Structures are given as structure tokens and as C-alpha cells.
């Protein structure tokens, strides 16, 4: 059974076909990267998979269960967590409170949720900032907070939307190691990423989107040489 199965997914916004007849799977414990030029529909796919957007057609199956009609919080309870490309910290709450919101779904007792949250903060290297309001964090720290909150929900499948964009090399390396460690514990990961170094070193498989359609899929080294992919990124003249 795969962690995630997407079949014939489609979504139109007005005159824009954001996602068109898209199918792919993410196996249990696998890391899959979703790449494509800006505006290819990657974030829309995340919205559709995580229950924030209703698809026009197609089916999403999460661990063998059809997810149509399930709200985001219900999907999260089943083990699907996502981060947002435009980060959404609870700015006036402390960093540890932010992570607790994620942990409370599995640990209803606030004390248990807090100790879980502190363990996650330790892992992402934000323990020293636990008491600060989340609004005071730097960009790189906010990215890690976004990741920490999602991790605190103890997901089976984690959708990461550009958690490395805007980070310097050293910060990117930290996140790559973190994602690898999370995956090593058995969490499947679907990531949207423009940082190719990260995609190449993490993903076992890559799905390439262009204008809402899948144009290529396969091992990173194969996809990187695919002429259709190169064309999508660089245009016809390449």
C-alpha cells in the first residue's frame, strides 16, 4: 500500500487549468520531489492533497483511504501533515506554543504536548528560542518552526513546500539532514523544492510538473537529463 496515491487529479481556477489529469504515488517511507517551473501548479497539488482545495476531478487516496470531503484537520489526524510556502507562524504565541498546537492532536494533555514540543524543538535546533514569540524569529528559523510544527503532529506523510528556499548553504544543509533523519524514522515525504542540490540528494524519485501536467517522472539523474524537463525549465530556445 502506498502512503499517497493521486489519480486523474484536476483543478481549474477560472480560465486557468492549474492541475490537469495528474497521477503519481508516494510509497511508504519514500521521498518524492515535486518540481517544475514557477506556476506549474505544485502548491495547488499540495492544497488538493491536504484537503484545503476541492478537486474538480480525480481521486486522492491516503494510506488506502479515499480522502474526498475530508477537511485538513481530519487528514492531519490520519497522519498527513503539510508546511506552507508562505510561512504561517502564530506570531504572538511563543515558539514552544506554536509547536504544541501540532503536538496536542496526539497528546491531549498540555504537559505531555509541551514535552513533545520541546523534544521536536531540540531536534530542529530551536530549543534556545522556545520562549520567544514566533514573530521575532528570522526567516531561516521560521522555516524550521514550520517544519517543527508539522513534525509535532507525528505524520506518516509529510508535505514540505519549499522549506529550503531563501536559506544559505549551511542552513540548507541543516534542513537536508533533518529531512533525512525524519525519513529514516519511516515518514514518507513529498517535497516541493527549487533548491536542486536538495532535490538531488534527498529524493528517490522526482515528478516534474509543467502547466499542471506531469511531463516526466523517474530517478533524479534520469529526470535531470530528460529533454522535456530541460525545455520546460529553459523554454523552447534551449
Amino acid at each position, binding site marked *: 500500500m502506498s502512503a499517497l496515491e493521486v489519480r486523474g487529479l484536476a483543478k481549474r481556477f477560472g480560465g486557468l487549468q492549474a492541475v490537469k489529469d495528474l497521477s503519481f504515488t508516494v510509497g511508504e517511507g519514500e521521498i518524492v520531489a515535486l518540481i517544475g517551473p514557477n506556476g506549474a501548479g505544485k502548491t495547488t497539488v499540495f492544497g488538493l492533497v*491536504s484537503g*484545503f482545495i476541492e478537486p474538480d476531478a480525480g481521486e486522492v487516496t491516503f494510506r488506502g483511504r479515499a480522502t474526498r470531503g475530508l*477537511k*485538513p*484537520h*481530519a487528514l*492531519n*489526524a490520519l497522519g498527513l*501533515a*503539510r*508546511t*506552507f510556502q508562505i510561512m*504561517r*507562524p*502564530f*506570531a*504572538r*504565541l511563543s515558539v514552544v*506554543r*506554536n509547536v*504544541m*498546537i*501540532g503536538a*496536542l*492532536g496526539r497528546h*491531549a*494533555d*498540555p504537559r505531555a*504536548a509541551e514535552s513533545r514540543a520541546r523534544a521536536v524543538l531540540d531536534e530542529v535546533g530551536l530549543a534556545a528560542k522556545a520562549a520567544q514569540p514566533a514573530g521575532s524569529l528570522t526567516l531561516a528559523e521560521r522555516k524550521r518552526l514550520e517544519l517543527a*510544527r*508539522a513534525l*509535532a*503532529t507525528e505524520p506518516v506523510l509529510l508535505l514540505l513546500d519549499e522549506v529550503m528556499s531563501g536559506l544559505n548553504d549551511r542552513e540548507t544543509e541543516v534542513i537536508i539532514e533533518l529531512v533525512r533523519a525524519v525519513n529514516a524514522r519511516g515518514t514518507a515525504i513529498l517535497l516541493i523544492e527549487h533548491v536542486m542540490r536538495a532535490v538531488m540528494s534527498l529524493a528517490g524519485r522526482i515528478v516534474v510538473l509543467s502547466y499542471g501536467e506531469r511531463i516526466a517522472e523517474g530517478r533524479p539523474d534520469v529526470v535531470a537529463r530528460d529533454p522535456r524537463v530541460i525545455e520546460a525549465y529553459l523554454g523552447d530556445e534551449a
Partner: protein
Amino acid sequence: MRWLGVAATAVALVLPAVLGPYALAIAINVLFFAYLGQAWNLVGGYAGQLSAGHAVFVGVGGYTAAVLAAETGLTPWIGMFVGGALAAALGGVIGYLGFRFGLRGFYFVLLTVAFAEVCRIVVSNWERVGGAVGFYITFTGDPRRLSFQDDRAWYYIALALLVVATGIAAAVERRRFGIYLTAIREDETACEALGVDTLRYKLLAMMLSSFLTGLAGAFYAYRYSSLQPNAVFGVPLSVEIIIRPIVGGAGTLAGPIVGSLILTPLGEASRALFGQGGWHGAHLILYGVLLVAVVLFVPQGVVPWLRDLLRRRSA
């Protein structure tokens, strides 16, 4: 904080012994509006859902208790809770309509005001319950019928209501429910992604808040021996309910109490000063000026501002 609460309660318990009748009446209002503010605070403060029609729950609670007593002989002590339950049901309906269909910010404000206004107009035209003239309750002085010869009884009832509501708010604050509410206030989309059933928790907050507000209806009805639709369903009462927790600090335990300690005596003084000679709306101007000042200088409210001040002093 806890010691402060215990000390304040102790002072409040002995206070009536030294108060004259006028001061006692003001003290009752301080407690009563602090209670209403605390009830509103659950949904408006912690959860950040700005209900601007909370008077409707006072009206529903008051009319329910008073009409039930008149028609069936049910003691208002029980009618009070029937009124609270009906208010909670109405709060559930308003909340569901607002939250289910994603009315946020100003749109939710408008929805709540609209419901209160519709109820005011319906009751104003409902002759069975007195219509626009209002519903009058015969004064009996019988404690079993929620009627008292001595005003100190109202003082202690208001104090008990406030202590209970503050206890509930304190319990909510510590639990998952309350922690979720503060996150809902910040970002509902992020909450959903983190597994928080935002609709459910907002509805729970709204119903708990409207239940407590509904209890206040019987207090109001029997203290004044009357109910007028314009007074108990009207926008002015809704404003009175909201303004104290906002000035004191929305989403803080002490906010509604501090807000009421500041605003209730001010409102009374302004009424006493300007009450004659066509100036009887002056306290509203005062509220307006104060609200502008708070928004400009201490937007989080007085309590968080004081807390920050003390923290900086000690640091």
C-alpha cells in the same frame, strides 16, 4: 496571579460592609459587567471571534426566565439556566452560520449584530411578552423568586457569577481547548493544517460564552424587575459588554475585570454629571474617546501593557 485573585476575592467579600447604597449599586455593576465581559472574552478574546451582538443572549436569557416564571410559575433560579441553555442554542446557530460559511472579521461582526437586531424587533412586536413596552416583573422580595429586599444579595450573586466565569476561563486557558483558541485567533488555516478542528472549537467557545451571557439575563430582569427589548437586545448593551474586556485586555483572565473597574465607575460618574439637561449620552462619548486612546496607545489592552511594564522593571 493566583494570589492576586484570592486577595481580590477576599476584599470583594467584605466590601459591602463599608459601602453606602449608591457605591454598592456601582460595585454591583462593576461585578456584573466584569462577568459579562468575562463571558464574551471566551469567544471574543481567546478565540478572537468578534461577536458584537452579545446583548441578544442577555435578552434571550432574561425573557426566558421571566416569561417562564410568569406563565408556568417556574422559579427564576431554574429559569436562569433554561435561559442560558436557549442562549447557548442561539449562539450555536449564529456560530454555525458564521463559522461554517467562513465569515471572518467584519462579516462576523455584522452577522452577530444582525441577529441581535432581528431578535430585538421580533420581541418588540411580540405582544404576548409585552411588545415594545417591555415585560414587567412584580417585585416580591422573596429570595426563592430571585427577588431581594437587600441589594447586597445582588452584589454577592454578581460576585459568585464573576468568580465562576473567571474560574471557567482559567480552566479553559490551561487546557487544550483554550490553547487551541489562542492559535485560532492567530491563524485558522495553520490550525487546520496542524489538526485543529477550528469549526468545532469556535462553536464550543461561542456556545459556552452565550450560555454564560444568557445566565446574566435573569440577573438583569429580576434586579430591575423589568425587561425592555431596546435595552436588553440593543447595540448599546452589546457595546457595554465588549468594551470592558477590550480596554482591559482581550484574551487575558484579568482583562474584563480590570476593564470593568476602570470603565464602570467612569460611565456612572459621567451619567451622574451629565445625566440631566439633555447630556445623557455623554458616557458614550467618553467610551469612544477611551477606546481610541486604548487602540492608539495600548492596543493589547491595559493588563498586557501592565504585565510588560512589570517584566521590564524586574528585568
